[in-house]
């Protein structure tokens, strides 16, 4: 017995039909409009069963759709949309405020640094207090570079000693350039504060600077002794 697929192919070949034409012919046959496919018994059997199935389907009573369902559906859509709009409207001011704060914060951070705050200070007392309070902060590499430069730029020796006391906490971040300050500094208490850092620093080569300092004319004897002491340990 031929399979339905083989029957289908035979009919399509016999009537020279493509797939769509066959489907249409088949539906017409089931509906009783066409009799072309009638030659094949197996096909007739299949068609009969299909016809019966369609007849049964037609006899099933239709469930009547409730008339208010459209209204309900529409109402739900409107409600959902308006709720969404309301929540967006409610969130928007907070979002805008947060965005503004973030923008201001980033502008503020970009323009504000310890250095720029320090440069605004006019009196030595304000500068001293500011530098000492930096002990409570975690300094970045930029901050340390600024403080290293302040050792060269600042005039007041007490401010310099306070900076050096602060920088002694960041000894590992001090490079050879920092120790160049030994060559230009003249105030003995500042030189001693520098040498105290040098003494605790093992990672930088500074023998040249120490020798130059030790040989400087008019150098305070205590400073010279300290420089020689460090050189002798090396």
């Amino acid at each position, binding site marked *: 017995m031929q399979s339905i697929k083989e029957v289908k192919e035979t009919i399509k070949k016999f009537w020279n039909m493509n797939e769509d034409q066959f489907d249409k012919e088949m539906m017409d046959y089931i509906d009783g409009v066409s009799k072309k496919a009638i030659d094949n018994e197996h096909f007739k059997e299949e068609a009969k069963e299909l016809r019966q199935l369609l007849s049964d389907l037609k006899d099933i009573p239709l469930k009547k759709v409730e008339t208010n369902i459209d209204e309900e559906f529409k109402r739900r859509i409107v409600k959902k949309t308006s709720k969404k709009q309301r929540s967006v409207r409610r969130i928007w001011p907070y979002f805008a405020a947060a965005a503004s704060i973030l923008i201001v914060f980033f502008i503020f951070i970009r323009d504000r640094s310890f250095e720029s705050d320090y440069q605004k200070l006019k009196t*030595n*007392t304000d500068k*001293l*207090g500011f530098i*000492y309070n930096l002990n409570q902060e975690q300094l970045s590499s930029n901050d340390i570079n600024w403080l290293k430069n302040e050792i060269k730029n600042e005039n*007041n*020796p*007490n401010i310099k*000693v*306070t900076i050096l*006391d602060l920088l002694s906490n960041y000894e590992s971040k001090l490079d050879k350039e920092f120790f160049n300050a030994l060559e230009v500094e003249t*105030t*003995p*208490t500042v030189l*001693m504060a520098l040498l*105290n850092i040098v003494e605790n620093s093992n990672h930088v080569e500074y023998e040249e600077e120490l020798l130059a300092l030790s040989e400087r004319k008019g150098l*305070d004897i*205590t400073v010279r002794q300290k420089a020689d002491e460090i050189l002798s340990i090396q």
Partner: protein
Amino acid sequence: MKTIKYILSILSVVYYQNTFSQIDLSVYKHVERIHVTSYWGNINAVGTFSGNEKEFTLGVTHTNNSNITKRVDDVINYVSIEEKNKILYIETRLPSGFESINLDLKIPEDILLEIKLIRGGEIFVDNFNNGVEINSLNGSVKLDRIGEYAIVNATNGEIVANFKHLNKNKPVSLITMNGGVTIELPENCRRELRLISRKNGYIESDFKIESSQKIANLNKKKYSKEAIISTAKINGGGALLFLSTENGPIAIKKSKI
């Protein structure tokens, strides 16, 4: 008769030296600050009462290379005086050989005083209401009855300072290299302390020292070979009190004023 003449001539010299060998600076009484720069010699500055009659004078004593000392009349040959932006600059001439120039200043007590002593000498400052800033090389610095604050840097010499009142927001910083640091503070003074005594030091305090660290030789007059470096508070803390010496003790006393 000869004796009387001799006594009179001595008295006239003493009178002349004490009366005429100083110049009147009252023309500068409107200045806010005085900056004194000297090389060798002592500086004695006294704050005068800020009434209508403020005494504002400068006396100069010169010691030459032969070690002969005299008060000078021609002050202008030893000291330059210039005013710029409400600051009065007083500067001694560059010394020739070992000559030294001592300055005696009487200044209205409300003027801020700054002193820079480049080579050496003793500094004594008494009775200033608005703070003092001193940078000295060789010699001690003594401050008496100071108001607001003090920033002092000395090299070879002790620093002794007492305050009649302090500005609670302004730091005090006293730093020397060889010598002790002694400070007298009002009893209710609140300060954040940074104490550094690198060697031969101890810390003496009339105030209760509040610190999370143990401070070596606190109130023990025993010279430590080890560095004493500490952070502490008195009366709960406040503005900075930075006291530092490379070689010597530190004393914090309660003021008797």
